[in-house]
């Protein structure tokens, strides 16, 4: 599988703060890549470096095998970019703005017209006749995706496309991204983990200026296959019997927690409970989600 984006050991220092301290990751073709990190972790910095909008202190970035240099615009149409707070010329309408973008990108006049209406349809702005000045955040975000896609880029970079939106707007944007991903790779940053779980194929965690974890969603989930078991007994008096047999269990909120219990551990516990005839109100296997993984990764 060929990689669309290859980031190797990039570093960036702002004043005394080392924002990026050797970030490396790669985005394969036809993949929605989630770029996860806390606010201020350096997600935007990394993306701007990929676009050649930011001078890095070291490291290499390759897009489709082409090295990216500061100030030099990536070969036109290779990357589409949606900034975190997209701002457009308020006195234009959405179709006019898309036309401008297309003309800058050098799309043929005849092809441009159909491309514009196609994209406006994709993002649901085809009936919007007002000037951009009056657009809501969600509408600007959608127009932002449309302008980013105009030259059919191989890689679409979205900086926190969903962070400022209400649940409905978020769902719409995610759906648009999913549709867009049929034709391009998508790299999108977020701190909302459920978004990543919903549409991403791969993800990377950025923390402390480094990628602390990366892999496909299945791999990431597998890392936390040792899930916790939570056991609630009918009679609290039985607690000691259980803890005597399973010393790793700890009591919290009246529940017994068995950390990192494999499926085998689970079966053993159930066998023990059945053998001793201990009544149980509830036995839960707590499936780890990305949030747990994230918390574990950042050491909280």
């Amino acid at each position, binding site marked *: 599988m060929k990689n669309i984006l290859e980031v190797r050991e990039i570093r960036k220092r702002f004043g005394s703060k080392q924002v990026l301290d050797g970030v490396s990751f790669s985005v394969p073709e036809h993949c929605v890549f989630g770029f996860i990190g806390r606010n201020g972790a350096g997600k935007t910095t990394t993306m701007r470096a990929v*676009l050649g*909008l*930011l*001078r890095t202190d070291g490291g290499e970035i390759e897009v489709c095998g082409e090295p990216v240099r500061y*100030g030099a*615009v*990536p070969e*036109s*149409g290779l*990357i*589409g*970019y949606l*900034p975190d*707070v*997209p*701002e*457009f*010329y308020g*006195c*234009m309408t959405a179709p006019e703005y898309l036309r*401008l*973008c297309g*003309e*800058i*990108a*050098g799309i043929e006049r005849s092809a441009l017209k159909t491309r514009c209406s196609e994209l406006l349809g994709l993002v649901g702005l085809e009936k919007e006749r007002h000037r951009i000045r009056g657009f809501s955040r969600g509408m600007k975000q959608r127009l*932002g995706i449309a*302008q*980013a896609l*105009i*030259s059919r880029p191989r890689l679409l970079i979205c900086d926190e496309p969903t962070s400022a939106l209400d649940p409905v707007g978020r769902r719409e944007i995610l759906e648009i991204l999913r549709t867009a991903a049929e034709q391009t790779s998508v790299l999108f940053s977020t701190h909302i983990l459920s978004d990543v779980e919903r549409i991403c194929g791969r993800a990377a965690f950025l923390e402390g200026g480094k990628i602390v974890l990366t892999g496909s969603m299945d791999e990431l989930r597998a890392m936390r296959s040792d899930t916790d078991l939570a056991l609630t007994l009918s009679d609290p008096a039985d607690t000691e019997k259980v803890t005597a047999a399973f010393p790793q269990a700890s009591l919290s909120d009246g529940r017994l927690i068995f950390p990192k219990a494999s499926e085998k551990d689970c079966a053993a516990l159930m066998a023990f409970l059945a053998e001793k005839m201990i009544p149980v109100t509830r036995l839960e296997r707590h499936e780890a989600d990305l949030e747990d993984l994230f918390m574990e990764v950042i050491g909280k």
Partner: protein
Amino acid sequence: MRGFAVFFVKELRELLRTKRLLILCCLFLLFGIMNPAVAKLTPKLIGLMSEELAAQGMTVSAVTVTSMDSWVQFEKNIPFALIILLIMFSGIYTFEYSRGTLIPLLTKGLSRAAAVLSKCAVVMLMWTGGLALCFGLTYFYGDFYWDNSAVHSLFFAGFCWWLFGLLMIGCVVFFSSFAASSAQVLLGTGAVYFVMLLAGMYGRAKAYLPTRLCDSLSLFRGDLHPSDYTAAAVVTAALTAALILAALPLTKQRQI
């Protein structure tokens, strides 16, 4: 080159939509009419005042107005028109940089040089058109009421003002390449003018300074000839070109 043309059209469209073009037109129209109007009305006003003055024991002789008075007004007023134009366009770069509206276009292959130059071209076009309007009106009324031939080197004086305006626009372009706000751009442009005024105190430098171009009065009266302005004009043109050329690499360095 394609980027330049597309961006140029976009800038013009913005000027039209934000009504700036209309305001500028009105402004220069206004200044153009005011010059002869003030000249024409002066004797009337003095006539009204003369009765009062006479009561105080002063006598006022009859004033005859010529086109010269109108052109003196032109020299007095055109700096204000230029200042208003500069204020109006002082944020044309910094506003885009700070809002980030340029980023989507830059990532689509618009070169920074094309953006800088096309904006510069638009402002220069506005100055050219505005000055022509203002000059044309003053000229028209000058012939309508009086006779322009009494005034020397009219067109050359107009050209001098045009060149001086281009220099000031060049300053805006230059300072915009690193200034954070329109206020800083104006401050820098003002500082350049101030420095030129200070330098003008040395008599020997005077003939080479761009501020020499603002002295239309000596031209009108025939005290100085266009050839006395050649050095200043060459310096101004060179300085303008240098400022704009310097802005290109500086803008390329700029973190947008």
